[in-house]
């Protein structure tokens, strides 16, 4: 897991602007290292540069500057058909004039594999994706899920060093997508091939990937394991894009040992963990993020129990919704509104608090994090 598989070094991709507009930087000087055997996700909203990054690796685009290195080799000037990577396209791009078998065999034929060997390998690739019995059909006779599997078989049969997947499950319905997520993950673990996939669906990225790079406007904002990205988002964008978050605006009063104390108004101040290399100083306006499910809510009748690791502040419930698994409260704390999610269990039934009720909200200190804007 320590061998470097793919590396982007200060990679830039500019597209010429239309009608005298400035050139557009789809990928703006990104550095990225992906290791052998990883299941890596490029995650971001549409237009963030994730697909362009994938296309740079595939060889469909040449970088304006910077390097793309695969298996230790510079890819500058190496055309797509000579790269040790294969792609599963967004809408599969299967060849409609060929049968399923011919589609899967295409790459082997191009590599000069003899017919019998190619047939054997194509058949086993189709078996791998769970489609052994539709060899003679044409793509248009297949369901979306089947087409997706054929596209997968067509790419995997080449035994690529890296498999690239561009929104591979985007066209499938939710149920099928969930199933394919699990299957893809199992397949990747079994084959040990490095997978790099592009998605705008944070849940999909969290489910499948070992590591995620969150992208926005051509930049990589944060790279990390799913839990790192979720638990310790560095920027407001990352915290907002992945999961649900409360943002509290305030003024940094002072900092100590990477903990900043933030005044959120009404004489309420809370501690917040500062990420590394955070440049904020006392007096700056800052944003603090807390996940709704990390906040607990407590009646005023229970004695307050704040200590070194726990933060506890007064608030007032303004809204309460029962949504099945959880109950969601909106609690007014100082000048901010905090969303609180309380899981409904046998021990803690929902709707325990009513609007206008005065409550304490509390959380473990490490859950409140100062963000980079």
């Amino acid at each position, binding site marked *: 897991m320590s061998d470097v598989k793919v590396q982007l070094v200060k990679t830039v991709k500019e597209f010429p602007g239309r009608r005298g507009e400035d050139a557009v930087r789809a990928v703006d000087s990104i550095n990225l290292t992906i290791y052998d055997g990883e299941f890596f996700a490029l995650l971001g909203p549409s237009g963030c540069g994730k697909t362009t990054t994938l296309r740079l690796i595939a*060889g*469909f685009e040449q970088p304006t500057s910077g390097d793309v290195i695969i298996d230790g080799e510079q890819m500058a000037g190496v055309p*797509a058909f000579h790269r040790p*990577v294969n792609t599963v396209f967004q809408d599969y*791009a299967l*060849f409609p004039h060929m049968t399923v078998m011919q589609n899967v065999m295409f790459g082997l034929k191009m590599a000069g594999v003899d017919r019998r060997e190619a047939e054997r390998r194509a058949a086993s690739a189709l078996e791998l994706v769970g489609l052994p019995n539709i060899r003679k059909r044409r793509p248009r006779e297949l369901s979306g899920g089947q087409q997706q599997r054929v596209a997968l078989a067509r790419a995997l049969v080449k035994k690529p060093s890296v498999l690239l997947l561009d929104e591979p499950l985007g066209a499938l319905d939710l149920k099928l997508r969930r199933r394919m997520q699990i299957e893809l993950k199992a397949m990747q673990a079994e084959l040990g091939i490095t997978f790099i996939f592009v998605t705008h669906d944070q849940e999909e990225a969290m489910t499948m990937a070992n590591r995620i790079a969150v992208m926005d406007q051509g930049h990589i904002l944060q790279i990390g394991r799913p839990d790192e990205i979720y638990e310790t988002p560095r920027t407001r964008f990352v915290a907002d894009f992945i999961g649900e978050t409360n943002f509290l605006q305030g003024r940094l009063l002072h900092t100590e040992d990477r903990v900043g104390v933030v005044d959120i108004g009404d004489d309420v101040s809370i501690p917040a963990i500062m990420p590394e290399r955070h440049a904020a100083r006392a007096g700056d306006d800052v944003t603090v993020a807390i996940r709704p499910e990390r906040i607990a809510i407590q009646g005023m009748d229970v004695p307050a129990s704040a200590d070194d690791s726990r933060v506890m502040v007064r608030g007032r419930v303004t809204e309460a919704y029962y949504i099945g698994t959880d109950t969601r409260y909106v609690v007014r704390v100082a000048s901010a509104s905090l969303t609180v999610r309380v899981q409904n269990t046998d021990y803690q039934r929902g709707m325990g608090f009513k609007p206008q009720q005065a409550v304490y909200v509390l959380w473990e200190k490490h859950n409140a994090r100062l963000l980079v804007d």
Partner: protein
Amino acid sequence: MVAGLKRALRKHNAFILSLPALFWLLVFFITPLLLVLVLSFMSRDITGRGTLPFTFEQYERVFTTFRPVFVSSINIALISTVVCLLIGYPLAFYIKTRRSDAVRNLALFLVILPFWTNFLVRTYAWRVILGQSGPVNTTLLSLGLVDEPVIFLNTQFAVIVGMVYTFLPFMVLPIYASVERFDFRQVEAARDLGANDWHTFWRVVLPQTMPGVVAGCILVFIPAIGAFITPDLLGGRDGFMIGNLITRQYKGTGNVPLGAAASMVLMGAVMLSLLVYIRFTARQER
């Protein structure tokens, strides 16, 4: 009685509705065709019209005396078709791959534009262009590429130029239609799977645009092989084609049965090429 009639009418609805069309085909297509067929087996009287007895003489002459005319007609039509294809195929791709809609629409408009002018006028224009002192020869002379004017007119070359010019839109438009349907990401898919430009073209792009190519070739070849105005105006003796042969038999004191036989043979050739077309598209559809 009335009810029975109604039921009968309803039962044969489709047949009754198609009666006008059937009548039209019978009177204006099948009857003349049969007349020509019968004529083609007749002898020539002194005025050039058909007369008894029945004979195979006309077909014999078509396949012997006039065989060279057929051979050179097929040649000219084939060369025109191939040249149209070589120009039309890249042109269709060029038009399709323009980024702006305005440029694309303008290009398509320019392809169709010649239809707005009379065909005869356009063909006469080529007489001027290719003439001894026309712009082509003047340019060649002034560039010093030739010492004396090249004789273009009244050659097969001039006929091919005229035909390519006339029929190019019939090639471009069907190819454009199939290029329009082509999903260009398949080029990337092919390259991703290790196909170079050559293999990508032959195995992915061409097979999927083949229906347009075949349609274009048929649409050019059929009118080209039967053309008579273009060879008449540009070809002279050298570019004499089946169309001219047939016209000559029907005008003045020709040989109407011979013209009929030549027509039948021409029609046979055209039908043969249509059969090829149908076989081909049937295979594509499967």
